[in-house]
């Protein structure tokens, strides 16, 4: 069974980021055979995320979400655009992910903003961030502005959602990157091996 987790950083109730995450999840359940997908709102975790940034460990509720992310087969990441970039809460969540947690994981990137002029945030801000994390990001990013929620833009948004999820479904059906997080301690790294083999030059 394929498990997908959608992280969304919208702040209002109900936010357009949450609506977009719901659309993506619905499309996943339609297009990926046997997939289950769930949406995690970051807003209720905001204090936990701050505590984790300050203390260096995740409180239990946040740790549960991190475990969900780590064990998911694929991720959806949705953020509102604040001041021309991803939301601070979204970045703080990414900051508390262990740096190798999403290596090789297929990801759909999505964002919402007050105007279509922000749509390149996906490519200029989110894509480099997930590139750093070594995630496998699908080519289509899904941006939704107020125009897209109205009757005029709605079909185009649905098309983008389905196209991005189609790409995700295709990746999930293939062999992926062949890479994922290494949980085991590497006993055979050069530094590790140098411990039990001290140099004896003389």
């Amino acid at each position, binding site marked *: 069974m394929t498990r997908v987790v959608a992280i969304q950083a919208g702040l209002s109730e109900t936010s357009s980021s949450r609506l977009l995450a719901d659309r993506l999840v619905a499309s996943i359940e339609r297009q990926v055979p046997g997939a289950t997908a769930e949406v995690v709102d970051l807003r209720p975790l905001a204090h936990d995320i*701050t505590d984790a940034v*300050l*203390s260096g*460990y995740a409180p239990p509720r946040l740790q549960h979400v991190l475990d969900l992310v780590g064990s998911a087969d694929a991720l959806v990441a949705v953020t509102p655009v604040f001041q021309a970039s991803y939301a601070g809460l979204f970045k703080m969540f990414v900051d508390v992910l262990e740096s190798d947690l999403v290596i090789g994981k297929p990801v759909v990137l999505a964002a919402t903003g007050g105007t279509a002029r922000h749509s390149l945030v996906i490519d200029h801000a989110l894509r480099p961030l997930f590139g750093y994390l070594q995630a496998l990001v699908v080519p289509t990013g899904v941006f939704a502005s107020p125009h897209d929620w109205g009757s005029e833009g709605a079909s185009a948004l649905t098309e983008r959602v389905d196209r991005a999820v189609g790409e995700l479904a295709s990746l999930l059906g293939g062999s992926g990157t062949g890479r994922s997080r290494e949980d085991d301690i590497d006993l055979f790294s050069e*530094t590790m091996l*140098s*411990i039990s083999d001290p140099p004896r030059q*003389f």
Partner: protein
Amino acid sequence: MTSMQFGIFTVGDVTPDPVNGTTVSEHERIRNTVEIAKKAEEVGLDVFATGEHHNPPFVPSSPTTTLAYIAAQTDKLILSTSTTLITTNDPVKIAEDYATLQHLSEGRMDLMLGRGNTAPVYPWFGYDGSKAVELTIEHYQLLRRLWDEDVVSWEGTFRTPLQGFTATPRPLDGVAPFVWHGSIRTPEVAELAAYYGDGYFANNIFWPKEHYIRLINFYRQRYAHYGHGTPEQAIVGLGGQFFMRKNSQDAINEFRPYFDNAPVYGHGPSLEDFTAQTPLTVGSPQQFIEKTLAFADYFGDYQRQLFLVDHAGLPQKIVLEQLDLLGEVLPTLRAEFDARRPAGVPDAPTHAARVAARDAAEVGAQEQVHA
């Protein structure tokens, strides 16, 4: 003979007291540290360990000076470190300084090696912080030889070569100081401790226990892998922290401003969350005993328990009161830990026991030759 050692370790921070707004001088902090160590012996603790730092707001830059001074004023206390920087100190100087302390204290000392965690410190001593793990390994391999071999010729990457060098004084009774390796996230340090059959210490302060269990288990397995004994026989030390009052609500009320403003975790999680999620106890002596005893459930029966007591700007008077309270629960802790301790778990290391073990091994080897 003490199966398990209890003690305190200090970071040596000079932190403003958030309640009365005062800050002790470096001079007062250093004198207070000595008073705390003497108090530790008075209340029946086994170990006093000091950190090593080379930047404000910390005062202990010269651990062996302080420890030798304390050794001269105590009779039983084991003097140790938490930690000695194996990265930025010259291993030759570590070998000499700590062997000298060993002689002056009649063997009442050991040391805990650590990397330190402040990148700017490395260049102050001529090193590159990005090489911390490599420095740790090379420096320790040299330190080991300087203590275990009378004449050493050596060449490495980070230090000028040595030709026919003898570190003086030689270790007391020909047995080098016991070494603990402190680390909370570096598998290489656990491997180093396991390879040499040394002790492994997890500070057990800042994070939930799960963060420490992984490396302690790794160390125990690798200790057995290198033939030093079973995983249960590996030598483990743990940190911990507490604030006690007879009435738990008094402890919470009194400690809260210090917790809320403490370096490292202050202004973050609430006192309630942090005590629920990490090894910190703020409460009654009974609560402290229960939480501390549970450490052995998570990490296995172990040899040394050190507590952080003098930090976060706590006034000296309160620190000394905390040590009195620790002294009062100590007999219970010793009895309870001993009661649950399976046969075969080794006692905490002491110089006398290690000299006796070395002598017994030599007699055994001679008997085999003559048999």
